[in-house]
């Protein structure tokens, strides 16, 4: 029996696609797939592979008469010996450690509130998502005025709330505050995205679980701790990972508001890369930074995969 059914299979497989569907259809399929494949090859795969090669050369931005030299791992060695690179890596780490609790925490709390039956729930949800669709450049204009020293709105609020015990803060000009100021601005801009991801996650938890918990005598707190939190585990992983990756790519806010200053306190990996490649014209060196950035993002994404597999099935 099994021999009879397996016989036709290899035969069918050997028939070429053209014999199966004919030339017109074959060409049409190629024609429909080709634009995407070619464009991705030209603008995604090629630059990606090229970055590994360029990273090992002294390629300048503008072509020079002297030929491009292969320098091996020299660029990487110079990066790893550059204190400013380590500062930038430490800065984005610092930024990540701040933004995770501030942004994801706020998003989580807001989602918890909006997940209840409160009046105008959808209006609030739409409102809270508004900054997430606002361009970062516009956000920088808005927060540029909020951060004014010493008489900006934020300083007025700080001074008023502290009853005058806290002096006005030079938000973007003080090396101790600049990164935290960028955290505030970035969290304000992006938290709406995390909020709707959390909301979707919460709505994915079946009501029956809450009913069952209620029958078992679980109070509000018990239901939160034993139903909501376990149900949100994959959402937590996703939100934390996506926020971490975003944080490591921090650039626009820095380029517009602080240019990495004051005293390199807001220098980031991407800003460091753009400065090397664009302003100092050392494309080879900048490509080496971009390879390092890719490896960082890859590691974070692989960690996410591992964690997702463990929680999901």
């Amino acid at each position: 029996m099994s021999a009879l059914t397996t016989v036709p299979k290899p035969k069918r497989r050997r028939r070429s696609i053209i014999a199966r569907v004919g030339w017109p259809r074959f060409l049409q399929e190629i024609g429909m797939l080709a634009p995407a494949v070619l464009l991705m090859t030209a603008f995604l795969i090629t630059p990606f592979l090229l970055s590994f090669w360029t990273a090992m050369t002294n390629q300048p931005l503008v072509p020079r008469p002297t030929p491009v030299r292969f320098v091996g791992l020299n660029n990487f060695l110079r990066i790893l010996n550059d204190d400013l690179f380590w500062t930038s890596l430490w800065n984005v780490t610092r930024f990540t450690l701040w933004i995770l609790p501030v942004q994801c925490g706020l998003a989580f709390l807001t989602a918890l509130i909006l997940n209840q039956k409160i009046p105008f729930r959808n209006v609030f949800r739409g409102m809270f998502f508004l900054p997430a669709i606002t361009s970062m450049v516009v956000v920088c204009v808005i927060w540029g005025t909020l951060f004014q020293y010493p008489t900006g709105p934020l300083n007025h609020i700080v001074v008023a709330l502290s009853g005058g015990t806290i002096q006005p803060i030079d938000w973007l000009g003080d090396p101790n505050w600049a990164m935290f100021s960028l955290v505030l601005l970035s969290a304000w801009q992006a938290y709406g995205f995390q909020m709707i991801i959390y909301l979707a996650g919460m709505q994915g938890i079946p009501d029956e679980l809450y009913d069952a918990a209620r029958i078992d005598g679980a109070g509000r707190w018990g239901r939160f701790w034993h139903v909501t939190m376990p149900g949100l585990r994959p959402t937590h992983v996703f939100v934390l990972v996506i926020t971490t990756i975003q944080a490591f790519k921090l650039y626009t806010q820095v380029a517009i508001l602080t240019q990495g200053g004051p005293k390199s306190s807001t220098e980031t990996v991407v800003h460091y890369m753009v400065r090397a490649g664009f302003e100092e014209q050392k494309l080879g060196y900048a490509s080496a930074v971009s390879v390092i950035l890719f490896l960082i993002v890859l590691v974070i994404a692989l960690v996410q995969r591992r964690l997702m597999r463990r929680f999901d099935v």
Partner: protein
Amino acid sequence: MSDLALSSRKPAATLNGYRIVQSISVFVIALVVISPLFMLFIASLKDDRFQILADMGSFRAFWVDNPTFNNFREVGNFAGELAFGRYLGNSLLILGSTVSLGLVINSMAGFILAWGSLPGRALILSVIIALYVIPQESIIMPLLIIVSRAGLSDTFTAQILPFVASPLYTFLFYQFFAQLPKELYEAASIDGASIFRTWWSIFMPLSLPALATVSILMGIETWNQYLWPILITQTDYARPISVAIATFFGQDSIFWDRAMAASVLMMIPILVFYLAFQRWFISSFVGSAVKG
């Protein structure tokens, strides 16, 4: 334990305290989220940039005595300095071309991957999924070499073509097409429709949710591009509005009045779409995330 019996009394008492905390927090969050945006719109109607900063410290930030469109008139030129009319037009052109080309190209590819008969589709699909991990920031330096060697510096093409085909959007289309019923495809091929016809006349009209999701995600992404256009544009010719607004920050004393008006110009198109299609926006962003 006797929760059911007590339920008529106990929750009613706790509910009020809880409700109050809830309402206060929603109100505070709404204030924090909305007031900066509201302030932006109000400030763009004030003519005096020093007055804007002076008003910031008080409730006058939310009020304008003599609203004027002077700032908009100042920045709304189409040539010369402060040509934000032109920059806005550039951005809209880049947005329109990228999204419309992107919809066609990514959906065609997604359709072939889902319903075509080419060998190696599974391999292409897994390569595309793997490509999704590469962040734009990490390919931007070599991309700069490729695009400038191709003679595309300072062009619209350089801001459109590299971002038309995207692993994420091809995958989203693939995912959407693959879950449509097989009968749809079979009926079309029995009727003798070519694969192109099947995609265009049968599957595309049924794909409004996918088309909306991709348009919205792609639109926001294109509209907010900053790093790439700063590297690739040198003149006003193809400069998008995001890059132009950022130049306000390069000056010694920032013209906040003009910066505010230009920002409002940049916000309006997105805001109009958002207010009209809010539900779609939110579900699109959720949809982009479920991938994992």
